[in-house]
C-alpha cells in the first residue's frame, strides 16, 4: 500500500495522502468562514452589490480581463516584446525555424 | 443498343492500344494468355468508363477501315511532304526574319468534329499557318498566317488540298 501511493523522488518521497488531508483541512476552514459570513448575508439588500474602495461599481462583477492589471503592467516591456515575436506572419515563423536550424547546426557540429 | 455499340467500339480501340503496347510478350501470336485476359478486362473497364464521352458527338465513320487506310496514306504522303515544306519555310523565316503575319478567316465547309479536328491539326503543322479558333456553329476557321498574301483567302490558298483529304477521311 505504501508503495502504491508514494513517489520516491531523488531526495525523499512525496505522498498525496498528506496533501489530501491538508486540502480537506483548508477546505473545511474555508467552508467554516463562508458559513460564518452566510449567517449575516441577506438576499435582496445592498449586500449583493459589489462595493470596492468606496465606489459603487457599474458592472456587477470584476471582469476577467481586469485581474492582474498591475501585474501585466509591470511585465509590459517583456510582454510587448513577446507580442511582437508572435507577429502572425508566417515568414517570421519560418525565419525563427531557420534560426533554430542554424543554432542547432552550430551546436552539434562545431 | 447504341450504348452497347459504344462500349464495344471503345473496347476494341482500347484493346488494340493495349495489344500494341504489350506486343512480343508471349507465344499466343505475339502475346501471352495473361496479357490477353488482363488486357481484355482492363479494356472493358476503360470502355465502361469512357465510351459515353468518346462517342458523344458521333464519329462512327472513322471505324471504317477504308477511311483508316486513307488516313495513313494521307499521313505519310501529302502531310509529311507539307510538313517538310513547312519546316523549310520556317527555317527560311528564322534566318531572314521576313514575316508578314495576320489572322485570316476561311470556311472549308467541314461539318463533323473529327474532320474539323483533323484539318485544324494539319493546318497547325503545315506551312506558315496556325489554327487559332474554330467556330462551332459556322465551321469558320480563324488562322494565323505568317505570310499573308490575300486578306480574304480561299481554303486552297491557306492549306492546299487538306480540306479535301479531311473530307475523304472523316466525313
Amino acid at each position: 500500500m505504501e508503495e502504491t501511493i508514494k513517489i520516491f523522488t531523488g531526495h525523499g518521497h512525496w505522498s498525496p495522502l498528506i496533501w489530501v488531508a491538508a486540502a480537506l483541512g483548508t477546505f473545511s476552514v474555508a467552508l467554516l468562514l463562508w458559513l460564518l459570513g452566510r449567517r449575516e448575508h441577506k438576499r435582496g439588500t445592498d449586500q449583493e452589490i459589489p462595493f470596492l474602495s468606496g465606489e459603487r461599481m457599474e458592472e456587477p462583477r470584476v471582469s476577467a480581463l481586469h485581474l492582474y492589471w498591475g501585474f501585466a503592467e509591470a511585465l509590459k516591456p517583456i510582454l510587448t516584446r513577446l507580442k511582437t515575436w508572435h507577429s502572425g506572419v508566417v515568414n517570421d515563423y519560418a525565419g525563427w525555424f531557420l534560426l533554430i536550424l542554424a543554432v542547432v547546426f552550430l551546436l552539434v557540429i562545431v | 443498343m447504341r450504348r452497347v455499340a459504344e462500349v464495344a467500339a471503345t473496347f476494341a480501340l482500347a484493346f488494340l492500344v493495349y495489344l500494341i503496347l504489350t506486343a512480343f510478350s508471349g507465344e499466343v501470336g505475339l502475346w501471352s494468355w495473361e496479357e490477353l485476359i488482363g488486357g481484355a478486362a482492363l479494356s472493358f473497364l476503360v470502355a465502361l468508363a469512357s465510351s459515353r464521352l468518346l462517342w458523344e458527338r458521333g464519329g462512327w465513320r472513322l471505324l471504317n477501315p477504308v477511311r483508316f487506310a486513307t488516313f495513313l496514306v494521307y499521313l505519310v504522303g501529302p502531310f509529311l511532304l507539307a510538313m517538310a515544306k513547312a519546316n523549310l519555310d520556317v527555317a527560311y523565316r528564322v534566318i531572314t526574319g521576313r514575316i508578314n503575319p495576320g489572322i485570316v478567316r476561311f470556311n472549308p465547309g467541314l461539318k463533323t468534329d473529327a474532320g474539323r479536328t483533323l484539318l485544324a491539326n494539319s493546318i497547325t503543322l503545315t506551312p506558315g499557318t496556325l489554327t487559332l479558333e474554330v467556330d462551332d456553329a459556322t465551321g469558320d476557321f480563324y488562322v494565323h498566317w505568317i505570310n499573308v498574301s490575300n486578306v480574304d483567302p480561299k481554303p486552297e490558298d491557306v492549306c492546299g488540298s487538306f480540306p479535301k483529304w479531311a473530307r475523304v477521311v472523316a466525313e
Partner: protein
Amino acid sequence: MSVHAPILVIAIPLLGGFAVPILARIHRTVRDLWVVLIACVVAAGVGYVAAQVFSQGIWVYVLGAKTPQETRVSAGFPIRIMLTVDAMSAFMGLIAGILALAAFPFAVRFIPEEEGKTLALALGLLLLAGIAGMAYTGDLFNFFVFLEVTSIAACGLIGFRTWTSRAPEAAFKTMLLYSVSGLLFLLGIAFLYGEYGALNLAYISAQLRGSMVDRIALALFLSGLLMKVAAAPVHFWAPDAYGEAPAAKTLLLVVNTQVSLYGLWRILFTLYGGKLDAGVGWLVISMGLLTMAVAALMAIGQTDLGRLVAYGAVSQIGYMLLGVGVGLVSLTSRADYGLVAMKGGIFHMLNDALTVGLLFLCVGAVEWVKGTRDLRELGGLGHQLPAVALCFLLASLALAGIPPLNGFASKIMIYEGSFRLSPILTALAVLASILLLAVFARAFQGVFLGPRTEITGRIHWVFLFSMGVLAVGIMVLGLVPGFFVEQVVAPAAEALWRGRALYLAAILGG
C-alpha cells in the same frame, strides 16, 4: 491473433478511417457507432500491448516476414520494416488510447451534422492511426511516413471550421511549418541512409560513430522535431492550431505533439544515445525553460479561452523538455538524478495529456452552450454547468501543479531532478507554474463565476462521460501516483535512459 496486436492497433483505425465515408452512406448512426467502436478497440489494443510489454519486455513484430519474430534474414541485418514496442512506445500508445476513448465519443456529439462531419471523423481515426504508428515503429522512414500522416490529418482537422477566417489561416501556417519540419527530418534520414545504407533504427544506432554525417543528420532531426513539438522559438503554430481546431479534436493534436516528443526522445536516446555531448541536452533544457516562460507569459494577455488554454498546453511541453533534457545531460555524466527527472518528464506527458485534454473538452462544452469563447462575453456559467466548472477547476489546478493532483506528482520529480543539476532551472520552472496558476484562476473566474447568464445549448451526457474519463484519470493519478510511477513510468524512463542496449539486442540479437 494476439501475436499481431501491435500491428492491429495501427491497422484497424486505418481500415476504420478508410471505411468511414462508405459507412456514412449507409447511415450516420452506423458511422458514429463505428467510430466509437474503433476508438474502443484501439484503447483495448494499446492496453493489451502495454500489459504485455511491461511484463515481458520489448515486443518486436516484423512486417511481411514469415514469422513475426524474424528480425534478421540470413545475411544478418534487418531488411524489413519492424515494429519495436518497448516500454516507452507502449506508454505513448497508452496515452493515445486513453485520449481516443475520451475524444471520439465527444467528437461524435460535438461536431455539427453536415458534410464535413464524416470527413472530420475519418481524419480523426487516421490521426489516431498515425499516432499509434509513430509510437510503435522501429524504422526511421516509417516514422517519417506516419509523421506526415499525423501532420496532414491534424492540419485537415485544424482547418475544419472553414466558415471562419481564422481556422484556415491557422491550418495553413501549421501545415507549412509541419511540412518543412517533416522534410528536414526526411533529409536527415537520407543522410543516414547514404552513410549506412540502412533504415532500421536499431541497426543504424549500432553503426553510429559520431562522424560528421551523423552530426548533420542529428541537427536535421533535432530541428525538425523541435518544430513539431512546439518548443519555444518555433512554437508559434501551436496556439493557433490548438485554439482553432474543434475542441474534441484538439485532444488528438495534443497527443500528436507528444508523440513527436516521443520521437525526439527516441532519436536522442535510442538512436544517438551515449554518443552525444552535453550541448544537446542543454539545448533541450534551455528550449524547455524558454517554452514554459514564453507560453505562460503569453497566456496572461489572452482574451480567447481556447487560445489561453492552448498557451497553457504549450507551456507544459516545456516541463517535459526540461525533465528529459536533464536526463539527457546526466546521461553523459552518468549521474542518477537524471533518471528521476526523466521519470518526471515522462510521467508529465501522461498528466499533461489528461489535464490539457480535459481543459479542451471544457472549452468545447463552454463553446457548445454559449457559442463563443471570448472571455469578455463569457461569465456565470458555474450556475448552469457545475460539472464542467468542477472539471475545469480540477484540470487547471492539476495543470498548475497544485499538490494533491497529478500535475504536482510529475512536476515534483522534474523539480528534484533539475535541482540537482542547477537550482536556477527549478526556480524558473516553479515561477512558470505559479504564473500558470494565476492565468487559470483568472480564466476560471472569467468563465464560471459571476452572475447567471443565458445559455443557448444543453450539455449532452456524452460530453460528461468524456470529461469524466479524463477527470477520473487525473484524480486517480493524483491519489496513487506511486503505483503508476513504479509500474508504468519507471520502465518507460529506463527504456530510454539505459535501455538502448536492450533495444538493439532485441533486433540485432545478442
